[in-house]
Structure formats: structure tokens, C-alpha cells
């Protein structure tokens, strides 16, 4: 905290105000990173204060940040209701906060990070915020469908589990395709390709079927090699809820620091880079 300054702010978006903390490093920022959360009502500091820690450590590396909470969460105003479909995500909140962050920090070098619905909102927001140069997305889980909680869907899942692996893969692919088409032809696959075309992209996923086609798409992007870093790290998570083990928490902060530090001009030299054998790199696809 000695070298950083933190400014709590309310940012107007549509009919509500988003509460956020802007962290400023000493000197002109190299870049600014937006941190957002999932759809479960986590505050701007993220569960276990992960974004507070990451923001202050990024500031030590010359990178500013803004950590935000959605409408109706914490000190934000408005109603607590978050859409899960690709077309209903709180993308407006992310876009407005990203623009505000670039404006007040005086940089157009933007990074974004979030988990679950927040990860999906970030990747959707990149279409409106082309300044975004780097993404770190935790548990994008594109197969975590909005209808997952319904009885019909649960019955389908029980049947799905009984299928042989080869059939499972075909069903998952068909489901992925349907999800892509259902969201106004945006499509998870196309979104990933577009996002990776002009920026660094790091995805952290569980090794469950919820990752859908992500491994295949990322492998294709890696092979194509467009000059940007593209990487998938699959972790053996002990929990379906994010960040519920101390090891996951450490991995999250370290990953964010290392990735964004290397994404923007003036990198500090890789302090905090992941060592071989780190939980986050055990099942890297590259």
C-alpha cells in the first residue's frame, strides 16, 4: 500500500451506479486492469480478497486497476439480478467501467479478468472495448447453461452421465453448437477466436466437461500463432465453486500478476512467474 493510492468511486451505468476501487501505482500507469466477479454476488474485492491483493501487487509493478461489483451487489445500487445467457450478461457494466478506468488512468493499455459469468461478460465486452490487449478468464464454463438449474436439464445430465465417452463428446459438441446459435449467432467458439485475434488470452478451466470445446479451439489458435499469447490451463479443482481452496487462491493471484505483467510494455521481469509444476501449469495444453 505504501506506493499505491486507492480511490473508491461510483460509476454511473444506465439507471444504476457501480461501486469500484481504482488502484493507482506510483508514477504513470503502464496499463490498467479491470477485475470483475462471477454472478453469485461476490464483492469488488472478490471472495477471499483476491482482487484486492492482485490490484495492490499489480500497482507495485506499475499497473493500475479497477475492481468492480455488479448492480445490486455490495455498495452498488440497483437490483441484484444477473443474466446468464451470453446475450444477457452484465456486459454494459463491464464496458462502462472499462472506459471509465482508461479515461481516469490516462492509458489505453487495458486488461480484463473475471470468473464464471464475469469471464463471459469480459470476453463479450471486448467487442465494444477494442483497447483490451489482454484477458485472464477463470472458469469461463461456456457449457454452464442458464437452464442448468431446471429439473429437465438435471434429468438430461443424469442421462448424459450414463453415455459412453465417445457419445458424450458428440452430445457435448452438439450442445455447444446449440448454445452458440441460441445466443444470436454470437457463439462461444467465434467469440473465443475473435477475442484471441487481437490480444493475449489466458483461460483457466477445470478439467470437467463444462470446458466444452475450449481445449480444441485453443489448440487451433495456438497452432495458427497470430503473435499473441494464447493459453489454456486446466486445473484439477476440488470444488465447483470458485477459489475455495487456498492453493486455488494463490494460483489465481499469481497467474493474474504474471500474465498481465508480461502483456504490457515495461514488464517488470517476470517476478511471480509460474514455476514448472505449479498447480496452474500441471495440465497446460501447450
Amino acid at each position, binding site marked *: 500500500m505504501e506506493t499505491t493510492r486507492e480511490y473508491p468511486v461510483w460509476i454511473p451505468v444506465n439507471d444504476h451506479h457501480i461501486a469500484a476501487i481504482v488502484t*493507482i501505482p506510483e508514477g504513470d500507469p503502464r496499463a490498467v486492469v479491470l477485475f470483475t466477479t462471477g454472478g453469485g454476488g461476490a464483492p469488488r474485492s472478490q471472495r477471499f*480478497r483476491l482482487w484486492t491483493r492482485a490490484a495492490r501487487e499489480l500497482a507495485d509493478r506499475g499497473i493500475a486497476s479497477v475492481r468492480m461489483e455488479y448492480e*445490486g451487489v455490495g*455498495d452498488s445500487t440497483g437490483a441484484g439480478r444477473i443474466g446468464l*445467457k451470453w446475450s444477457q450478461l452484465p456486459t454494459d457494466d463491464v464496458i462502462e467501467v472499462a472506459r471509465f478506468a482508461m479515461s481516469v488512468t490516462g492509458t489505453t493499455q487495458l486488461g480484463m479478468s473475471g470468473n464464471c459469468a464475469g469471464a463471459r461478460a469480459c470476453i463479450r465486452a471486448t467487442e465494444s472495448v477494442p483497447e483490451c490487449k489482454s484477458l485472464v478468464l477463470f472458469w469461463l464454463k461456456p457449457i454452464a447453461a442458464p437452464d442448468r438449474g431446471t429439473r429437465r436439464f438435471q434429468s438430461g445430465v443424469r442421462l448424459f452421465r450414463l453415455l459412453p465417452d465417445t457419445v458424450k463428446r458428440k452430445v457435448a459438441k452438439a450442445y455447444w453448437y446449440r448454445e452458440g446459435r441460441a445466443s444470436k449467432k454470437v457463439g462461444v467458439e467465434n467469440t473465443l477466436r475473435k477475442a484471441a485475434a487481437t490480444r493475449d488470452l489466458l483461460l483457466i478451466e477445470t478439467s470437467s466437461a463444462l470446458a466444452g470445446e475450449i481445449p480444441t479451439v485453443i489448440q487451433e489458435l495456438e497452432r495458427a500463432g497470430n503473435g499473441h499469447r494464447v493459453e489454456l490451463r486446466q486445473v484439477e479443482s476440488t*470444488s465447483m*465453486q470458485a477459489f475455495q481452496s487456498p492453493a486455488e487462491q494463490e494460483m489465481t493471484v499469481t497467474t493474474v500478476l504474471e500474465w498481465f505483467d508480461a502483456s504490457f510494455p515495461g514488464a517488470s521481469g517476470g517476478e511471480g512467474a509460474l514455476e514448472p509444476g505449479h498447480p496452474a501449469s500441471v495440465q497446460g495444453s501447450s
Partner: protein
Amino acid sequence: MPVDVARLQAMGEITDPVGGISERFVEVPLRSGSTVGVLSIPAGSPGHRGWVVSHSYGPEQPNLGSFDAALARRLASQGAPVLRFHCQGYGDSEHTDFTPSVESHVRDTIDAVEAFRTLSGVRSVGLVGVNFGATCALLAASEASVDQLALISPAVQGSRFLHKFVRTRSIIEVSESTWSPDAPNPWSVLKAGGTVNIRGFVLGEDEFRSFEAVDLRTVDTFSGSALVVQISVGSEPRREITELVDHLESSGVSVTRATITDQFAALLGDRPYRRDGGQFLEDVHPELRGKVAELVADWGTGSPAPRAVMEERT
């Protein structure tokens, strides 16, 4: 382009987040370090009484953040300035490596009341809290020299509060099929001095001992009046709440007891967002928050509260 500090500072204040109030982010100095708070300020001239919101423990703090904000905003809309803040070790507080304890919660609450008196200029301060926030409010009341307490679903026994977390962990383990009959009982591990991970929140022997020592039915109380609110699915009085009320009354505190029934009462302090059956995650507590905030605000300002939920004890 340089950082626009003037704009950042100007946006630390908001007008009319709900009817007739403004809010301002403030720095709150605590003995444990600095932290961030929000001061809710009523329009017009504020009354002589103000409130400080004492937040709950561990994973409950973020889960009840909107609850605390709703309480603060409602009280402010009734004419009382209100401070809500992050204890050290939570949210935006200064020290990222600080592990909060029962003792640090209570000490920070006492310090926040002192800071609030300076910030707001009020003479008389009340404390309001939900679950373990209510527990800390009562534990801090005497030293903080408050004269009103609104205890919303207080955790009367620290050990029972802690046990609830451990139970939650067990449910998660079973639901994820990682439970093994050979695995040690986490509650036994904790009691034996071991360390357990409760939904990412690590608890050890020190926490167990300090929670075990908390029993609001035996603590020294304060001089003033208290609102004790039971939140439950049914309206049957809970024994530990009754015993707490008896203890407060026998200590000379003027107590008003109320019960609010809510179908989601069991989820209070848990993650409040649930699927609405369709394509949205929705906060399940807005109705409960509204009822509680109305009750506390009416009681705090001396307005009559709905008879259906309130039973005068003195």
C-alpha cells in the same frame, strides 16, 4: 495522459442511491490499520443519532454486503447518518495478510464508532448488525458507549455459529462426491486443534477457542435499549434468542423483541444468489432486507412498527 485525480475524488460521492440520501466513501482509521467505509447521509439536517453497521464474520461478510447497505440506506432515509465499513482483513481494508478474529472484529467496531462520531458529529450512536455482526455489536457496545443496539438474527453462541460453517462444508463435500467414510469429521478435527478449510476460509485452533468463548447470554451488556430480531421460516420463538433477551433485560437493557418470518431465512449469511428457474441469478433476500430495514428504521426513530412482527418486552 496523467491520472485524473480530481475526477476520481469527485466520484467518491453519490447522490440519491435511494430516496433522499447521499453516500460518500470515507477512510476509517482503526488501530489495526486503515479501512474503507461508506457514510450514508440524510438529506436536510441529520438527527442527533447515528448508526454504525457491524458486519458478519468470514464468508458471511460479502454475502451480507447488500443487506448491510440496505440497512444503512434505509436508516439514513429516516434521518440518521450511518457508517458501514470493512473490518481489518476484509474487502478493501489496508492489510491483505491480516487474519481477522473475534477480538479484531470487536476492536475494529469500537474504533469505527469513534471514527464515526468524528466524521458525522452525532452525539448518540447505535450499532446494528446481522448474524455474527450482531454478536460483535453487543460485544463492542459497552466500550463503544453506544445506547441503542439492533441485533438481527444474532449468533448467540459462537460455537454454534462456527459449527454451522463446518456443517456447510460437509454438505458441499457430499454434493461433490468427494466425501469418504474414512475422512475425519471436520468438527472433530477443529476441536482437536487441527485446521480445516471451510469453503476456502481456513480455521484453526485459535479461531475455535475464541468462538467457543463467545456466549451472549453471559456477557456484560450496556446501558440503553435493544431490538432483538429473530429471522426464521416459522414464528416459533427460538430458545437461545429468548435466553439472550432475558439476559439483556436482567441487565437493565430495555428490549424490544421481534420475529420476521421468511421462506429464505435459512439462507441468511449464505450466498444469496439463486437461479430464478430461468436465465437469471437473483438475490433471494430483497424482501427480507426491506422488512428488516423498515423494522430497524422504525424502531430506531421511535416510529410504530407493524404489530405482526413485534412483541414489546418492556
